[in-house]
């Protein structure tokens, strides 16, 4: 099987990243935004892994990506808890309605 090469990984990573950013920018649903975040993080992860495979970085990139995965899991747990609480209080998860603290 022919190797895809570095640029292929980078393209997929960039597409994932842009998708995530657009998802974050357009969705009003809190859960959707979280999904966007996951996409962005995974796009970045892909870059780490790819660079780790195709350059002389060794395992550094893979370790960093493992950190990011753990971080993403923790972040998702906290963010979901916030979303649940927000829903309990406002009966919605529309992030535009979360303007209570606006000055």
């Amino acid at each position: 099987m022919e190797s895809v090469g570095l640029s292929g990984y980078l393209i997929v990573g960039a597409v994932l990243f842009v998708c995530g950013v657009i998802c974050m920018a357009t969705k009003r649903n809190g859960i959707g935004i979280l999904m966007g975040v996951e996409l962005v993080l995974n796009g970045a992860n892909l870059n780490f892994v790819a660079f780790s495979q195709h350059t002389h970085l060794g395992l550094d990139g893979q370790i960093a990506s493992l950190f990011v995965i753990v971080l993403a899991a923790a972040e998702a747990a906290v963010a979901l808890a916030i979303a649940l609480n927000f829903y309990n209080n406002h009966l919605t998860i529309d992030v535009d309605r979360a303007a209570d603290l606006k000055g």
Partner: protein
Amino acid sequence: MSPDIYIETGTTLKWLLTTAWLLPLAGFLIEVFGGYWSGRKSRAAAFLAVGCIATGFVCSLIALLTWLDAADLNVSDIWQNPRAVAAATHEVSEATHVDHEHDADHAADAEHHGDHEHAVPAHSEEEHHGHAAHGNNPLKFAFNGTFYTLAKFGRIQITLDYYIDGLTVLMFTMVTFIATCIHLFAIGYMSDELTESYEDHQVHLPGGKHFHRPGRFYRFFSFLSLFCFAMLGLVLAGNIFQVFIFWELVGVCSYLLIGFYVERKSASTAANKAFIMNRVGDFGFLIGLMILWTWFGTFQFANTNPDQTGEQGLFQMVRTDAGAIETEGEGLNRVAYMQSATGEHLLGNDGQARRIPYWLLVVAGLGIFAGCVGKSAQFPLQTWLPDAMEGPTPVSALVHSATMVAAGVYLAGRFFPMFTPEVLLVIAYVGAITAFIGATIALVVTDIKQVLAYSTISQLGYMMLAIGVGGWLAGLFHLITHAFFKSLMFLCSGSVIHGCHHEQEMTKMGGLYKKMPITCWTMWIGVVAISGLAIPITLPYLGAISFSGFHSKDAIIASSLSFSTLNPTHSLLFFIPLITAGITAFYMHRMWFMTFFGKPKDHHVHDHAHESPWVMCGPLLALSFFAAFCAVGGESGPLANLLLTSEPTHVAGGVQAAGELGLTLPSHHEIHECHSQAGMMALLAALMGTVVAYLFYCKQAVDPALVKARFESAHRFLKSKWQFDEIYDSMFTRPVHVVAKWCTGFDREALDRFLHSCASLAVGIAQWDRKFDEAVVDRIVNVFGEVTYAAGRTLKGVQTGRLRQYVMFIAAAVVCLFVVLFLFLPR
């Protein structure tokens, strides 16, 4: 006595007396802290105080018996050979150190009494006695030791000591007994205070209202307890510094008790006066202490412990075996050598014999005596004592007649070995003058307590005189007998005052003997005792038939007669006390007749008078027994023999032409020789006084008013108390006022003005400073604040709170960054 028994006896005595000493302190603490919680109507405080002091009395009594046993002074022995102990102890000092001068005296003494058989056993006992090994032993018989070391500076130290000899034990017994009687009496006398609202008739409020305050029963008893603690501590003290501590504490108690009715202006003023007058004397005391400390390096009286070869006490340092002060040189260059434990000269650190300038020794003695002058109300500091009668009568009886004022005499007696002949002469003259002044003023005062106050001053003068002329025994003998009969008379006067509803003027009394017979006749015992009346028939072993005062006064007159015979230039020291003895008999009988006999002068007072309750009469009877019989046997009786055991060695033999003035002090033998002669003269004087008083105030053969009119100016002079208060007023008080006025003027005119200008200058500077602050500093700070605020305000708009917008910003910012990086960053 073997050293073992010596130490055992000493320890027993120490614990007994320490218990007696500390119990009143415990009582005081409980009363003063617990008093608030008991009701105003509770007598608990009184019972506690009485319990403490009565237990103290029991301890003292046991101590007295222990002491008698240890000193081989069986009561039966005393009766059989009156002067055995004196002669025996005298002999010891002679035997250890042969002194030719005294030998003749001693031979005469021994022959006179024929006591050789008895003297010898006593003598051998004394030889086994531990400190016979000491070279010099001016104190025949004493126990001392240390409770606690307060401070230590190298070899010298300040300690809390005890010093126990016959005088200590006797004083303990006397003080605790009288204090017990007076505490009991006070339960009755102070019962007015057992109330929530005591009305003080002598406090005048504006608008003629009556002054009310809560009763202070427990406070009175707590003060009495504190006083007993202080007085006993003073007697037990083993060094002169400790004496000074308790001296001051006693002064404080006196202050508190004189000012007990503090709302009365006269009482608070009298308390201040007493305290300040005492300070004057204490100043001298402090000078004496400083001299002793600097030159001797110790405050201890004496070190009598047989095991210890350590530091010598003051008395041992200053006197040799025979009790002489060893001096060298003349005039101001004269020095006195200090003695060591082995009977040689004490060597200093440099190997030279330690010496003290003789004149400093005189000054130290005079300084300590100045303290005694203040405390014992001697001329010229006597004016506080009559004013001190503002206190409740039990206080006058306990503090201002029997015990505290006698502390000065006690100290003069205790410190006798330190006094040079010059100091003794001063003491004698001060005493004589005081005795005369006090007696003459007592002739004209009409307040019953004032008569007793002046008679106290006069009697204290007697005691000082006796000590000054070398009659150590006579002075302290009179101290003890006087304590009994004077406290008795004060309590009687208290009973009269209580019975007459706080009337003290004798001019309103009269004819009270039917109303209060017990008071009248117990007082008669006191009056006869102080007057020195007797039936001049001598019984074997009992002496003349008389009450205690006769014996002691007799001893004083005999001492002063033999002194003035030996020193004819000072014959005034005999005539003054003789005349005073007559005056004493007169004014005491005047008081008694005016109070209890004649026609009632004020019917209101007379009709309401009543005999006092038993709690007051009981102490009167107890005290009158002792006032009558405590000196039984006179100078050969048990009391005098007890005292003789603690007499300084050099007194018995007399002193020949000593000191700069060449004074000769009489020996026991010389005093004894003129005893009967002096006794007869004193008795004659007293009888004359009594007869005159009887004619004036009972028989009314002569009208006192006529005599008064005849000697108008003399009467006025005496009535104004020899003008002492006026003299002091113009000598000290007014000049102080003038100086104070000058000082206020200086303060107002110079100091205040300077301070004011400084202040206004500071205010001016501060105003300028404020303007600078407001104009410059504040403005800079404000500008910072405003800028920050405006920035915050502007940036507020960016924070919309919309997540999607933020994401857009982030994305846009990232794109921008990339663009910038790719365009402008060099590859």
